[in-house]
């Protein structure tokens, strides 16, 4: 019988990614009801340091696959290894970080296993199974931008329940465990040859208006169309060292470059500061935008959804605000 909540400790270097600690928190909440063990799966070139870190996070069992080679970008290889590892661990649920890499490799693993994969969960609810003993997970996730929430469950014959969890949903669990995890080395798993080869890694060119590298992002929405609003916004961005991004209506109108469109998933940005003007909808779907340390939204509609994610809201005409700001710079 399947038992255990397995988290994927995604590892690109020596230590698992910080998101691992958030997944442990999610797994603990499940364990509180189901009593299942918290398992961690780590697949890395050298697992030694990862093991110590996972023990400090307080997981119950660690399953390690030492690949003896870097597996970064070798998604074909990882898909097979994950499938083989999960066949041995037999967990009831697998919690996966909703990042670009894990999404890609777990899609392969899910297809090979004939298992489901729910994407971008923001809430997991443990539900008692009325038909027989045990529990299942109701996996809640946003759909159609942020306009609808849907609840998804996994059919029992397609277990394990696999889901990716959005970053920032669960707080990171502290590293204060005493290191009593049972460690299992899955050294019988064959590491297949990848058909993918890394030729070269170079630092991205930091072009001036690259929004994925911008520290300060000024986002123009539909409300910034017309009049001098956009010109004022550009001037403001230039003065504070920011880069201008825009939502789809602006890209469709050809006002901002296609590259600088924001609001669609698939684009990763890492701003420290994000200031939006005339944006009403859900730009938080763009990966990284919610991690901004400071998010100020200016919109003349006080009911705009953007105020659900911004730290500070300004309900005013953006032109007035921009003129006032520019007069002080």
């Amino acid at each position, binding site marked *: 019988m399947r038992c255990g909540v397995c988290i994927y400790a995604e590892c690109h270097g020596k230590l698992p990614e910080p998101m691992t600690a958030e997944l442990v928190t999610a797994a603990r909440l499940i364990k509180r009801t189901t009593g299942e063990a918290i398992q961690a799966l780590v697949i890395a070139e050298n697992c030694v340091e990862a093991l110590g870190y996972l023990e400090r996070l307080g997981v119950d069992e660690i399953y390690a696959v030492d690949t003896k080679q870097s597996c970064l970008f070798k998604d074909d290889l990882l898909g097979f290894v994950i499938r083989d590892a999960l066949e041995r661990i037999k967990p009831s649920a697998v919690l996966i970080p909703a990042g670009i890499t894990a999404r890609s490799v777990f899609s392969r693993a899910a297809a090979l296993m004939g*298992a489901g*994969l729910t994407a971008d969960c923001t809430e997991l609810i443990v539900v008692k199974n009325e038909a027989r003993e045990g529990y299942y997970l109701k996996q809640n996730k946003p759909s*159609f931008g942020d306009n609808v929430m849907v609840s998804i*469950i996994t059919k029992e014959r*397609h277990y394990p329940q696999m889901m990716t969890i959005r970053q920032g949903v669960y707080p990171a669990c502290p590293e204060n465990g005493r290191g009593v995890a049972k460690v299992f080395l899955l050294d019988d798993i064959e590491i297949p040859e990848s058909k993918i080869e890394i030729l070269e890694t170079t630092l991205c*060119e930091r072009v001036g208006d690259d929004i994925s590298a911008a520290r300060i992002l000024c986002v123009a929405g539909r409300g910034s169309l017309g009049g001098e609003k956009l010109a004022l916004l550009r001037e403001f961005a230039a003065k504070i060292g920011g880069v201008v991004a825009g939502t789809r209506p602006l890209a469709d109108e050809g006002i901002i470059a296609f590259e600088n469109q924001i609001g669609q998933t698939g684009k990763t940005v890492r701003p420290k500061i994000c200031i939006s003007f005339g944006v009403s909808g859900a730009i938080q779907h763009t990966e990284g935008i919610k991690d901004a340390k400071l998010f100020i939204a200016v919109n003349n509609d006080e009911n705009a959804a953007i105020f659900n994610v911004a*730290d500070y*809201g300004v309900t005013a005409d953006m032109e007035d605000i921009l003129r006032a700001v520019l007069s*002080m710079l």
Partner: protein
Amino acid sequence: MNIAICIKHVPVSNDVSVDPVTHALIRENTEGMVNPADLNSIEQGVCLKDRHGADVVVFTMGPPDAEKSLRTALSMGCDDAVLVSDRCFAGADTVATAKVLAAALRHRGDFDLILTGAQTADGATGQVGPMVAALLGIPHISDARSLDCGNYAEGRIEASKQFGGNTIRLAVACPVLVSMSFGCNKPRFPTLRSKLTANKKELTVYTNDDLDLPRSEVGLDGSPTVVIDSFAPERNSKAEYISGSAKEIARRILDLVNGEEANS
């Protein structure tokens, strides 16, 4: 070179609300279009055809009105279009969708390169491409920014992607599936003439009579996951509102920005 492009016909707008009683989705606008990232994969495929010569076939699984998106792809320069459509495919999750697409690609013949968009505008899971590749037993590269098929004669192509502030150049053996990153190129506009030609073109339609997949593998039945409920998200405004005159608000904004800058 044989290129397949898998696209999705998505709603023009994500303006969907939920009926508070029935929890049914209420759509303001039911019009559909080519998923934006798929326009980038179509552009990439047609570019490769222009440069190296290739036969480009576009596929979509969907209801009959997905034909509109296939016509768009044809008008951008794809040679042939396949509509994969059957009532029994409806209600599929990502795995059940990938099974049908993989079967359709196999049914059509051997492809050296399969292109998809990195994500759709509606579901945004980014899963179907990698799943198709796994089912076909071929490698994939996700979220590619560009492709170079100069070494195609040696049975491999090169792709570059961005990760952690780096650009990574990868070589991969064909056949391969590559999902193209949204916005990685500038999709061409169809001309009046190309639109007219595209509209006259005969579409190929595959139903499950052609693919012959077990009913238990496709559609709602074949999906490992099932949507059991939909509901309106909670709208809790978490923002702290800044009020006052334009000057006062401006001062506060600058103080906040400068404060954050000083922290780093």
